[in-house]
């Protein structure tokens, strides 16, 4: 799958409270409703600004804090196609892959807001069209590739009834 989108840039340590605030997430399982509030505490108009396919690009430790799976789900339902960061917090990393939100771990220091990126998930290649260069990525661990290629952990369990990595 090839994803193309415009970059929205954030800093280091973007926690899951910022991605989706506790004051919303405890109330509903309606992810479309939660999506309207995604990143609201960092950028109150974020949801209005983005278009389907756009990408979140951040520094280190993206998704730190609470284990709320509503964080990757709200990002996904807002129409964001993938998140690129220099590093991801562990629980968010698992939750995103489990729910089928693609993540790319790479050096994001030379990616700027507004850049147009092209991500080839199978090849693990990222091209920055504005900078005219390809960005090297840290590939997903085998287990996560398997879950992502099954479409997430729910389809994985529907298919195998348990964890199946061989």
């Amino acid at each position, binding site marked *: 799958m090839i994803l193309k989108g415009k970059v929205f840039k954030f800093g280091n*340590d973007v*926690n899951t*409270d*910022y991605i989706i*605030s*506790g*004051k919303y*997430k*405890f*109330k*509903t*399982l309606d992810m479309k409703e939660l999506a309207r509030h995604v990143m*609201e*505490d960092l950028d109150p108009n974020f949801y209005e600004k983005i278009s389907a396919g756009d990408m979140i690009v951040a520094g*280190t*430790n993206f998704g*730190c*804090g*609470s*284990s*709320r*799976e*509503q964080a990757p*789900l709200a990002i996904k339902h807002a129409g964001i196609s993938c998140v690129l960061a220099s*590093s991801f*917090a*562990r*629980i968010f990393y*698992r*939750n995103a892959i*489990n*729910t089928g939100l693609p993540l790319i771990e790479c050096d994001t220091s030379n990616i700027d807001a507004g850049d147009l990126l092209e991500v080839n998930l199978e090849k693990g290649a990222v091209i920055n069209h504005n900078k005219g260069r390809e960005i090297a990525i840290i590939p997903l*661990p*085998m*287990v996560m590739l398997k879950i992502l290629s099954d479409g*997430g*952990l*729910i389809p994985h*369990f*529907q298919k195998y*009834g*348990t*964890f199946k*990595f061989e």
Partner: protein
Amino acid sequence: MGKTITEKVFSRHSGRDVRAGELVVAQVNYIMGQDGTTPLTIRAFEEMGGKINDPSRIAFVIDHSAPSPNEGVSSLHHLMRTFAREQHISLYDIGDGVCHQLIPEQGHIVPGDLVIGADSHTCTYGAINVFSTGVGSTDLAAAMISGKLWFKVPETIKVCCTGILAPGVFSKDLILHIIGDFTADGAAYCAVEFIGEAVSALDVDERFTIANMAIEMGAEAGLMQYDEKVEQWLKGRAYRKGEPVTADADAFYVDIKHYDAAALEPQLACPHTVDNVVPVSQKAGIPIHQAFIGTCTNGRLTDLRVAAHILRGKKIFPGLRLIVAPASREIYLEAMREGLIQDLVAAGAAVVTPGCGPCVGTHNGIPSDGETVISTANRNFKGRMGNSTASIYLASPATVAASALHGEITDPRPFFL
């Protein structure tokens, strides 16, 4: 080469000899979900289409919005109660307490266990020699069906704390200082073993505070040794026999850090990150609108005793609000027997239902625009308490109680001379 606590727990639960860096599918002993995460777990479980592996190894806790503040939450609570009843899963309902107090307090876990919870502060149980870690809702559903979860066995950082904390300085101050030094991702993807005289000298209640905050330095688990204090604490609680795990003397640590606990003064995490830590003395005098004592970090009996010691026979600062949430029903009852609740209420505190509300911004004390809060919780992110224009400082129960008394950030050490 010997093994760390983590390598031993994962070897035991995966049935083969494993080392840090290896991928394992391991049997879990216990599975916990709370009301912020379990509704999604139930949905994932139903979509996966499996059966519950062993309902006696699962507990749900309604603590994050308890009692329910609105209809949306009420219907999610109803979903949890119905599912738990149908599947024969234990459910702790409103007023029973905060999940990370209840799971160890009610004896569900024992040393040597591998435990997962759909809450990032599940690392709390490391204080009683349990490898426990937070996961998301879908991982939890997968474990409920299979009894297992996949892990990459983490590397371990050893944190040695020498010396004994001075009077008026507590385990919260020690862990805040360590987080400030490590930063929010300094221990990312690692387990941390906390050892040394300063840790051994702490009661189990106080050790939970340290293990609880391991996630705030990015760690997967915050582990401690099994000793006589843990053995005593588990008496009358645990319904299984544990198999304590000790690290080998020649185990490999990816890093070893040393801290002098004796030299430490009370610490404060300043807005808006947990690793923004300075000594309380540097910020003394900042006016406070609201103070909060409670949470899975510092809502235990020891914490309430410290707060009552400072506030007994006095009145909190005029116009300041002090909210107290005991971490469980058992703690609440014991605090009443000891007269601590009487002391705190007489001093002006508003005691709310045992639960997480004020800490996570669901209800029970959302600050107003631009207000300053001092709290015993574990997170001070912008908006954490429900208002993104409020500022939150994190400190020990002693610092919070002393600050509530004076209406400004206050070093509590004069109360412990």
